[in-house]
């Protein structure tokens, strides 16, 4: 077997493996999509891969049942979490890298250690805090909690990112008359764009899909976020699979859209942040 033929075979093997991975990940999503557009009768009868019927009835009913309210709640929470997390972690990472103070390096190392904490243990105190502050129905509570969950990882990603940006770039701005914060915002932040996008996307997705805290902290069904609302669809005597699938598709769209927009930066951001490259 010559060299060229061997390379082709290797190529084939690689693509087959990729194909298997893709199928494993995409098939459930495809099944969900398929279920959401099949008439109810067919969901139970047909197992054909290609849908044999088509209806938007489930989507109509999902929207009629007020599923757009949780979508709106989730959007508010996720966007709020993203902004808060990004701003705080950016300044935290900057402080760890650029200033000298006692405990600086230890703080940087301990940041990820907070993930060792079982989150379940925090639910009761969080609930009591929010209740005593009268913030149980407010999106602020969930935004703060989600920021707490996303922050350590984002600080970590951004720290690796800022570390790679030469100090001289900022110093050049200082010499040209910029202030410390001015140089950071005008020079370092634009240079760290892929990292900021990666961190922001992580916070957004984390907040969008977070169920446990949302379930405990939100007691009013008008304040439900998407994961909590989806769960409530499962709790009836009869599970309406068509409606559940349609709601799930709607719940996935905002995240898919974000990925679509940010795909260019995400790969670089995540690879760099986790030290792969």
């Amino acid at each position: 077997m010559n060299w060229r033929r061997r390379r082709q075979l290797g190529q084939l093997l690689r693509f087959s493996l990729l194909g298997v991975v893709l199928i494993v990940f995409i098939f459930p999503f495809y099944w969900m999509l398929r279920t959401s557009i099949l008439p109810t009768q067919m969901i139970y009868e047909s197992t054909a891969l290609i849908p044999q019927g088509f209806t938007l009835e489930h989507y109509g009913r999902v929207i009629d049942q007020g599923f757009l309210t949780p979508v709106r709640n989730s959007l508010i929470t996720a966007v709020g979490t993203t902004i808060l997390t990004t701003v705080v972690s950016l300044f935290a990472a900057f402080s760890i890298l650029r200033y000298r103070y006692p405990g600086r390096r230890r703080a940087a190392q301990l940041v990820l250690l907070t993930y060792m904490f079982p989150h379940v243990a925090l639910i009761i105190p969080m609930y009591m805090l929010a209740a005593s502050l009268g913030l149980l129905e407010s999106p602020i509570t969930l935004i703060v909690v989600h920021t707490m969950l996303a922050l350590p990882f984002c600080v970590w990603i951004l720290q690796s990112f800022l570390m790679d940006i030469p100090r001289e770039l900022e110093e050049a701005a200082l010499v040209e008359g910029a202030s410390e914060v001015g140089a950071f915002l005008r020079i370092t932040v634009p240079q760290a764009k892929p990292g900021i996008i990666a961190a922001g996307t992580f916070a957004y997705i984390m907040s969008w899909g977070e169920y446990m805290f949302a379930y405990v902290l939100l007691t009013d069904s008008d304040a439900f976020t998407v994961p909590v609302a989806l769960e409530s669809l499962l709790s009836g005597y009869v599970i309406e699979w068509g409606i559940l699938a349609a709601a799930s598709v709607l719940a996935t769209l905002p995240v898919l859209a974000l990925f679509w927009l940010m795909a260019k930066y995400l790969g670089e951001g995540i690879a760099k942040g986790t030290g792969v490259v």
Partner: protein
Amino acid sequence: MAKITLENLRKEYGSLTAVDGIDLTIADGSYTMILGPSGCGKSTTLRMLAGLEQPTDGDVYIDDARVTDVPPGDRNLSMVFQSLALWDHKTVRENIGFGLKMEGVAEAERNAAIDEIASLLQISEKLEQSPAALSGGQQQRVALGRSLVREPDVILLDEPLSSLDAKLQLEMRATLSKIHKEIGTTFVHVTHDQEDAMSIADEIILMNDGEVVQHGAPMELFDAPTEEFVADFIGTPGMNLLDGTVSDGAVDLGGVALTPAAETIAEHPGSAVRVGVRPNRIYPADAAPDTANTLAAEVTLVETFGDSRWYYLDVGIGEELVMKSADTAVFGTLAEGDAVSVCIGSEDIHLFDATSGRALSAA
């Protein structure tokens, strides 16, 4: 335009002393090079001058105003960094105009100034591109443009040529010198390359181990080094340096005696010394202007540089001497293995204290 004064300037990093108490004045409008081997504290000194590094002790004055605690942006100086530190997310125009923008100069006025500098540096067509798309030489010009456009009192350059290839380095060196002559601002340029310093500096500050070793005009350092370190560091190649002992109005090199100018050894009978002779001050006997000291030698190696040749000479004292000649008549007559008589003028013999390294003639 400004003169700079450093007063007992010190910088310590923990137990490491990077700059060990420097006192000096840089003349208004001069092109001053801070020269030294890596780790000698020259960049730290420049960064303290810029305000990017806070001195542990001592003060920096620009035109008699104490600026030690003034932030970099308020010192009216600019800096070209070793890495150039161009901002890739901005266009060349925005890079050059950043300082003017920070000063609050109106856009029209800003653009006029940028256009003028760009045409001076021949980068007018590149103004709307990202610096990342430019060649090394062009990037260098952008960095220079950024520091010139504000017309600062002082321009600091931290190894600005080291990122360029050899040919561009020479070109840029000449450009720097021309620009300096044209605008007359004080330039302070840090380099490890003594040829850069010798070629364009008005004054050289030679540093070693955090201290200033010698400060003067390039030819002063070349002809009258105050320390053995200067003699060795300046010149291509550096000075020949040999161990010797002073006796009877001459210096004994261990079998061979040299007679230096009388006043330099009169006060040092019996001292152990280091004897220095510039390679270009050793001549074959028939071309020598001064035949006070004539040595018999054998040529062991010849290195050819086109316009000059280096001859390694064995004069029977263990260590070899290097003779540098630019005389084409010598090129034709001298080859490896030849025996030759060489001469050294008595004024060309430098003596340094064997322990302190200080020049005896300067005492």
